[in-house]
């Protein structure tokens, strides 16, 4: 792939490779901006950039990630995703066959979540300025009532639910990047939470306080953020947190805590006191969230913002590392 300056070469690239795969009328009209129909009521808008190495990993790739990531962000904000924009930043010399595979996967993910990609941009940049391929997507969604009020509205007694086994994505990517051979090799949970969120909101309505997909920093980062916005202590029990044996074994070897490892299709939900079991049974009707569990609850603010009762050992403050976890044992 050669470095384009907006000439015929890049027009050709966009026509042949991208629009043909993503097929929809707004893109085909190719104006400077997408014209969108009127929507009643408030909207949600989000954007996210996707940089992952390697581009393909067990359970997903950068293409599906770029769709699900933004779709999930809209879903957990209480919105029904409508339109997406797509920006590709491609390193000069990037193999076209691989680009095709990414676009194919991206198109399938968009189709499965019924969102339309209505505007896009492609840049080819000199070698070494990006690592292969970066993708940005932005998404617009229609907020649907009742919109979850958010973590500032958490109260003592509220219950915390996780939608599935944690740490899958981070471990899968790490294993692929470091070329670790393990049996079983964990697969990323990369996928859409649209259906799960819709079912959950239908069943629980205003008993849902907040939802969040537990991406970078894992479940721990979401808990920390919620504890900060609410001024309360969020308390979980490690024994209740679903972790696959593959993730468990790998994280032990790597000295990592699954609570800190990224997910790409697993969310944390805070519901009002007593609603935890109902949330879990609704989620368990879907295969993607069949292992949902109540993992903890909201308490008055104590010594630590987030606490975890360990399977073996005491209740601990959940470590909130500045960056990647560093050894502290002296």
């Amino acid at each position, binding site marked *: 792939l050669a470095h384009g300056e907006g000439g015929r070469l890049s027009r050709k690239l966009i026509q042949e490779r991208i629009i043909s795969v993503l097929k929809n009328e707004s893109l085909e009209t190719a104006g400077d901006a997408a014209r969108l129909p009127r929507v009643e009521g408030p909207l949600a808008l989000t954007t996210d950039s996707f940089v992952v190495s390697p581009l393909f990993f067990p359970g997903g790739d950068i293409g599906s990630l770029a769709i699900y990531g933004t779709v999930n962000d809209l879903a957990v904000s209480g919105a029904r995703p409508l339109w997406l924009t797509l920006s590709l930043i491609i390193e000069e010399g990037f193999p076209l066959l691989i680009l095709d595979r990414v676009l194919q996967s991206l198109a399938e993910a968009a189709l499965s979540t019924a969102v339309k990609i209505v505007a896009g941009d492609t840049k080819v940049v000199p070698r070494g300025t990006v690592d292969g391929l970066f993708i940005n997507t932005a998404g617009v969604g229609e907020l649907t009532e009742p919109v979850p009020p958010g973590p500032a509205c958490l109260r003592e007694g509220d219950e915390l639910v996780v939608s599935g086994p944690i740490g899958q994505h981070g471990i899968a990517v790490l294993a692929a990047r470091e070329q670790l051979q393990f049996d079983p090799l964990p697969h990323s949970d990369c996928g859409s939470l649209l259906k799960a969120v819709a079912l959950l909101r239908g069943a629980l309505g205003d008993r849902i306080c907040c939802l969040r997909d537990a991406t970078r920093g894992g479940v721990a980062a979401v808990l920390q953020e919620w504890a900060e916005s609410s001024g309360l202590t969020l308390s979980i029990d490690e024994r209740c947190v679903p972790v696959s044996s593959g993730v468990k074994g790998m994280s032990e070897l790597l000295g990592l805590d699954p609570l800190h490892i990224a997910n790409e299709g697993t969310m944390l939900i805070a519901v009002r006191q007593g609603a935890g079991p109902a949330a879990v049974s609704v989620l368990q009707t879907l295969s993607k969230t069949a292992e949902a569990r109540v993992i903890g609850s909201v308490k008055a603010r104590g010594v*630590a913002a987030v606490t975890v009762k360990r399977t073996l050992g005491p209740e601990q403050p959940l470590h909130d*590392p500045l960056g990647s976890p560093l*050894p502290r*044992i*002296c």
Partner: protein
Amino acid sequence: MALKITLSGHVQGIGLRPAVARRACDLRLAGSICNTTTGIELLIEGPAKVVQEFERDLETYLPDETVIHQKTREMTEIYGLEQFDIIEKQTSGPLAARVPPDIAVCPDCLAELADPADHRFGYAFTSCTHCGPRYSLLQSMPYERGQTGMSEFELCSHCQSEYAAPVDRRFHAQTIACQNCGPRVWSTSAAGEISGFDSEAIQNTARALQQGTIVGLKGLGGYQLLVDATSQTAVQKLRNRKQRPGKPLAVMVTDLAAARKLAVLNDAEAAALVSPAAPIVLLQVREDSPIAGNVNSGLNTLGVMLPTTPLHWLLLQQCDFPVIVTSANREDEPLYYQDRSHSEKINTLADCWLEHDRPIEHPIDDSVVRWMAGRLVTIRLARGLAPLSLDLKHSRHAIALGGHQKVAIALHNGAQAVLAPHIGDLESLPACARYEEQLESLQQLYAISKANFICDEHPDYYTSNRASLQVSNVESVQHHHAHIVAGMLDQGWLDREVLGVAFDGTGWGDDQTIWGGEFLLSTADQYTRVGHLKPFSLPGGEAAAREPYRVAVSLLVAALGPEAALKTGMKAELINPVLQIIKSKTLAPLTTSVGRLFDGVAALVLGVTHSDYEGQAAMLLEASCDLSESGGYEMPLLQETPIQLDWRPCITSILRDRDAGVSPGAIAMRFHRGLARGTAQLCQQFSSLPVVLGGGVFQNRCLVEFLAEELKQKNQRLGLPGRIPPNDGGLAAGQLAVAIARSRQKGDGRCV
């Protein structure tokens, strides 16, 4: 003639006022003496000649424990007083008087306990001006009965008359009590049913110990668990309850003679056992000792202490075996001292309890000391030793928060500096809560407000996180520099440049790697890293500290290549995964830690693959040393900047010796000596500077003694650790000293 004299320093809680009053009464002088927040204020009046005689001899009749930091005198007007009184007086201002540490029961009180004719025969709370609880029992300073946990016990006429009689040993003894007026002791079942009071309670408890049950006891600074130390089953039961699988336990015996049956002790160790602080002393265990093997599995040392209170003494009199004494809490949790009725968790730890109604105002663990290279080294600063006065002058309030493990707080209130008692590892929520509680109570006790906070540079310690939430000034000190400056402070060497050798587990380094084998050219306020251990990778980061085999793999791969790692005899299921991650910079971060080097060598030599407790692998390696072995491995210096101490030839030799059938004891010894020699050689490159040691690795007696010997031969001056623990328990003292030195450099401290 009338004089006003003030004294500051260690002048309270040691019977100084009664001693002075006694002297004044002898000379028929009038006046008064009182405790103030700055120390002692003394007014004396009478015929000029007699007052002069009084003043001239003053220091000769003060108690032996007295340490005077400052003395002032001035002539005052004559009030025409008629007698000499000990009076209570409140003053404000920063607390300059030393908070007195607790003192173990004295020989005079023990004699009374044992004498059927004595008023306090068998009384468990006997104390006098020379002994008894101090720090653990006081609510606020100055140290007066009204401000201790004894204030709720009103003196009977007998005690009152002793308290008021200048000739009595209990003249103004603040914790005075007897069976008529003082606290009582009773025994209960696990469910809380009372089974007896006083001597009957003690008998019940002794019987329970004989039967191998776990006894809970309310001690001086917290609840304790006791079992028969000669019973393998009883000790195992205790370990299961406490969830403490392997970490060694300490024993208590009645007297020195009983201690000698368990361990070999020199004069200094014997003196430490019977000293007023009565710490746990780490001794060399005798081969014929009756102690159960699971008390100190794999070790040749045993922690021994003598009865700290009359209650312990009375109980031990009725047991003809040594008794395990350990804190009543699960591993990872802090010493429990509050009302037990609120905690189901604590109540299930013991089968029966020996309770009493004297409150514990400040929880405090037992201290631990070890004799090495001709010096007594504090391993854990707690009961009897803390708060420790630090010789630091500063005009502002500062609090050093310590590290993450073995945490202790140090502070300066503008009038004095102290290192406060050991709290523990901040791994559990209850431990963090205890840390917060002690921080609060210290600020109250020393009247500190709006302090500057000082913490470690590690971004993820509980204490540094806490500091970042502070609104006031926060500054950070590099971990190993703090270790070295703590050692400099201990030596009184803050005024000079030293070569600091800091060997420990891990600390956050300036280059974003994990340090732990550092040679720092240090002054009190700055340092240059002039040498370090050759770095190696730590596969799995913190997990490598719990699983020494990972370090062994890393050392082997670096010294001999990956094939060598598979030939060590460790299981391939352990080795192969580690080999997969060892090349990744993120999954296997670099370290220069000597603590981890010990772990790796212990895994190679002794096959220790996993640790039950922190430091276990290194302790087992030290214990296995064959003292008759005279060899030492080569640890050359790589002349780079900084200089590197290269352990690779040593690993090669270990493998060669192993294959040749050399005993693990000999290999362990050669490793210790090799490390000491290599270290001394590096020190010699800075031969004009005195050497200061810091870091937990220097709790290793074998290493310290070799190093001391090497440096002595080369005539390089060495400052060994002493009163301030070399491990992270002393970190806060170093942090405080660095911050004060820096502020003096900047000249903004208005320092005296």
